[in-house]
């Protein structure tokens, strides 16, 4: 198979599709990504075998369904990814009507999160940075400010770990994080961050969907330990950090899976156990992110409040 090998979320990925991720070594691989023939990917709505779906106003943004030969992850109008039952290969069929520039973003993010989730791994809807070998995960729904906070932390001196997708593993009372892709994707209104501190010299580009992709200095740790998880929430109020204890800490993690919209209890039991293990091992906080103010100062203060001085 042609292409290159990447290291993504702890997987060695051999891909025909160029991915924005660190290079992996040699021919060893956990999963292959092949490019299939382009085809239109229509919005079929709910159907048999559906395991997960994200819909709003009658439109499907993504869906995952089980089929006779594995699983199909569909992003109507953009791509369809066929995943084999052994979770070792993905065939990507891009919709010619969609924006090809987004295909590698979805493959490296949503598709890998899907494969890992199906394999029973815990993948959070989170960005993460690393300071002195210790990782901080920023969780939250889309638009909560995860990427902005992570980018601001990198501008303040933290190292980039992952954007929007974070695989974590709890093991013997400790939690480990796996690095994701190289870049942080920012909305245009956060473009000013790329002129600050550690981001000023980072490579940046514009993505197909109008976002600014900035590649901060990456973490050099292969699997840094999670120091704290922070659930972000946008607010007009001043920044406030509040620790969540017990059940609410677990629920905060459970509420932020990267593969959203899982139907019924599918995989939910293993998610609950994994989230409980994480919340037993590391503190979970809720942070209000003010809409106004200097995000770099805010990120720096947050890391300091978490006991991570830079």
């Amino acid at each position, binding site marked *: 198979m042609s292409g290159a090998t990447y290291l993504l979320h702890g997987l060695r990925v051999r891909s025909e599709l160029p991915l924005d991720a660190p290079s992996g070594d040699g021919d060893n691989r956990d999963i292959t990504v092949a490019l299939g023939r382009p085809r239109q990917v229509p919005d079929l709505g709910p159907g048999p075998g559906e395991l997960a779906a994200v819909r709003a106003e009658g439109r499907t943004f993504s869906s995952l369904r089980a089929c006779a030969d594995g699983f199909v992850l569909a992003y109507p109008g953009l791509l369809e990814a066929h995943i084999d039952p052994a979770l070792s290969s993905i065939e990507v069929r891009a919709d010619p009507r969609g924006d090809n520039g987004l295909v590698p973003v979805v493959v490296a993010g949503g598709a890998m999160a899907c494969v890992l989730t199906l394999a029973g791994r815990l993948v959070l809807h989170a960005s993460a940075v690393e300071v002195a070998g210790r990782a901080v995960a920023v969780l939250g729904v889309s638009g909560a400010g995860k990427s902005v906070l992570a980018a601001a932390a990198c501008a303040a001196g933290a190292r980039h770990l992952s954007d929007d997708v974070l695989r974590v593993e709890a093991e013997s009372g400790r939690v480990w994080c796996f690095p994701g892709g190289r870049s942080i994707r920012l909305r245009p209104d956060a473009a000013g961050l790329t002129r600050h501190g550690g981001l000023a010299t980072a490579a940046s580009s514009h993505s197909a969907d109008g976002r600014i992709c900035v590649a901060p200095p990456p973490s050099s740790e292969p699997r840094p330990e999670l120091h704290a998880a922070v659930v972000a929430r946008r607010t007009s109020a001043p920044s406030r950090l509040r620790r969540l204890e*017990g059940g609410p800490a*677990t*629920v905060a993690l459970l509420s932020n899976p990267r593969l959203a919209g*899982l*139907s*019924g*209890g599918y995989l*939910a*039991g293993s998610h*609950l156990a994994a989230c409980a293990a994480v919340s037993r091992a590391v503190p979970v906080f809720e942070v209000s992110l003010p809409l106004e103010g200097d995000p770099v100062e805010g990120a720096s203060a947050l890391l300091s409040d978490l006991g991570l001085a830079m």
Partner: protein
Amino acid sequence: MTALRVSDQVVYEVIDGEAVVLDLESGRYFQLNGVATRALELIRETGDLQAVEEQLVQEYEVDRALLAADLRQLVDDLIVRGLLNGDDRPA
């Protein structure tokens, strides 16, 4: 007596004394406070509402009548949500 059994469709995890209860059928989860979590554990162990009440009275310094009413309400709530199976029968 009232025989109770935690539903097969339920899994839960206790974190710092508080349970997060997951309904595997619907994917919905519920949080229980410390006393409710202890009650759930005792229900799982004994399956007997009276025994649960007796144990909770010993462990918590609360009025028995108040505890009994709260416990009954919790049990009814869990049964309505399908998290607990109840069977009222003569002692």
